[in-house]
């Protein structure tokens, strides 16, 4: 058989053509995606990575709700300029408890993956409520409502943690039972700060040098 007669046969037989298209377009996925589903290094948390606490999880949801990831990425690329500016580059194992991940794709503001511990809680509070109060030239919008709304009303934390546990996050019954009490008295801004202060801190460079 040669190319043209095969070509003719495929072109004249719709069923065969559809089958051929499916096979050809599946190859990329079969090579790129299927093996990754079985790749342990992408599912194993780095040594210090743990599931988010009730407070941090609520903060993360607020981070999502306010669209922080539209302007801030959470992925430090393995390039010297990024590592010098932000810290150790991001590892896959750091995101195993991120559903969905907040990598983002655009940096109008700086990357936030290693923001945890860089500023004090007080600074974050001022800055979120009114960025111009601490950085005069900032173009970040102000989020004054975060200081007024109750964290416990930001969503059903118990249901969220149960759902995540079903997906494999190791929450204990006690943690889930205490979740609502953990949020008691906190404003949304407190949980968001707790989340920001945790970002990128579950990482130990010495242990993760994988070469």
């Amino acid at each position, binding site marked *: 058989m040669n190319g043209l007669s095969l070509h003719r046969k495929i072109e004249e037989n719709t069923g065969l053509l559809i089958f051929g298209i499916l096979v050809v377009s599946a190859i990329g996925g079969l090579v790129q995606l299927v093996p990754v589903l079985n790749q342990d290094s992408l599912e194993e948390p780095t040594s210090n990575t743990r599931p988010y606490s009730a407070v941090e999880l609520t903060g993360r949801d607020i981070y999502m709700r306010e669209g922080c990831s539209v302007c801030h990425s959470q992925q430090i690329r393995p390039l010297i300029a990024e590592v010098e500016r932000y*810290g150790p580059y991001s590892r896959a194992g750091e995101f195993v408890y991120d559903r969905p991940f907040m990598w983002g794709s655009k940096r109008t503001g700086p990357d936030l993956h290693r923001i945890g511990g860089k*500023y004090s809680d007080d600074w974050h509070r001022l800055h979120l409520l009114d960025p111009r*109060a601490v950085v005069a030239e900032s173009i970040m919008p102000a989020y004054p409502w975060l200081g007024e709304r109750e964290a416990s009303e930001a969503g059903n934390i118990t249901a969220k943690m149960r759902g995540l546990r079903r997906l494999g996050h190791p929450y204990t019954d006690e943690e889930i039972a205490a979740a609502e009490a953990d949020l008691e008295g906190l404003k949304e801004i407190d949980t968001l700060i707790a989340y920001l202060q945790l970002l990128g801190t579950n990482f130990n460079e010495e242990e993760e040098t994988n070469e």
Partner: protein
Amino acid sequence: MADMQTGFWAGWIAVLTLVSLAAMGWLVWSIYFGRDSHEETPEEPVWDETLEEGHRPPPLWWFWLLFGAMIFSLIYLIFFPGLGSYSGLLDWSQGARMADSMENFDARFAEPRAEVAAMTLAEIQNDLNLMDTAERIFRRECSVCHGPDGRGQANLFPNLHDVDWQWGASPEQIEQSIRGGRRANMIAWQAVLGEDGIDRVAEYVQVLGSDAAAGHEGATQYQQTCAACHGADGSGNVALGAPRLDDDIWLYGGDLATIRETLQNGRYGVMPAFGERLDDFQIKLLIALLAR
């Protein structure tokens, strides 16, 4: 490399990649150079009266383009990781490249860094270029809290131009503050002092260091509760981060209402640690800038 596929899936990737590459090669080749590729078929269908369906092969430069792309992929797969567990002739990896560029980076700056390491603070302070660098580091790393000019802001972040430094202004103390950060811990005194006590002590603290302090009614309670950290005369204690109270420099504010608030609720100012974020060279330049 930890992130490479091994075992079955490595073979899966390698076989699928090579087989589909070979199949593509054969397809493209046979379309151009197959046995019947240049024969005319006897009946050419014509559609809508003028649309003829031909089957002449596409222009030859297309062939070279496709063929070239396939050769390129093959060469790429020989040199770089891509075929399952085969790591390529160049043994390239993301982590190794990062480590390499880090080494280059360090090597490139080794000389100026060594020079700065050997200099005294006074020598650095007399070098305009270095001080310019120090100011740039300050603007990038410190100004977000301490203000673009270092004069503090928001009544939360200390002014670095004044003489009253809560944690000390000597080069050693500054280094400690930058590397390890600082965590102030003034607890709330509402329960101990009571409403009246807070009033009395707040007034006393405000006038402390002036003549009005002598014989003030808040003095007794101040000595009992505050003096352990802030000193009997209000001169502070840099080891504890307890600021001077006998001068006119206030971080949170020196008006009566703010002092009352401080006494009632406590203060827990935090300076984050920069020991991991800055290198020795940058820290030394900052110390030179701040210790003036």
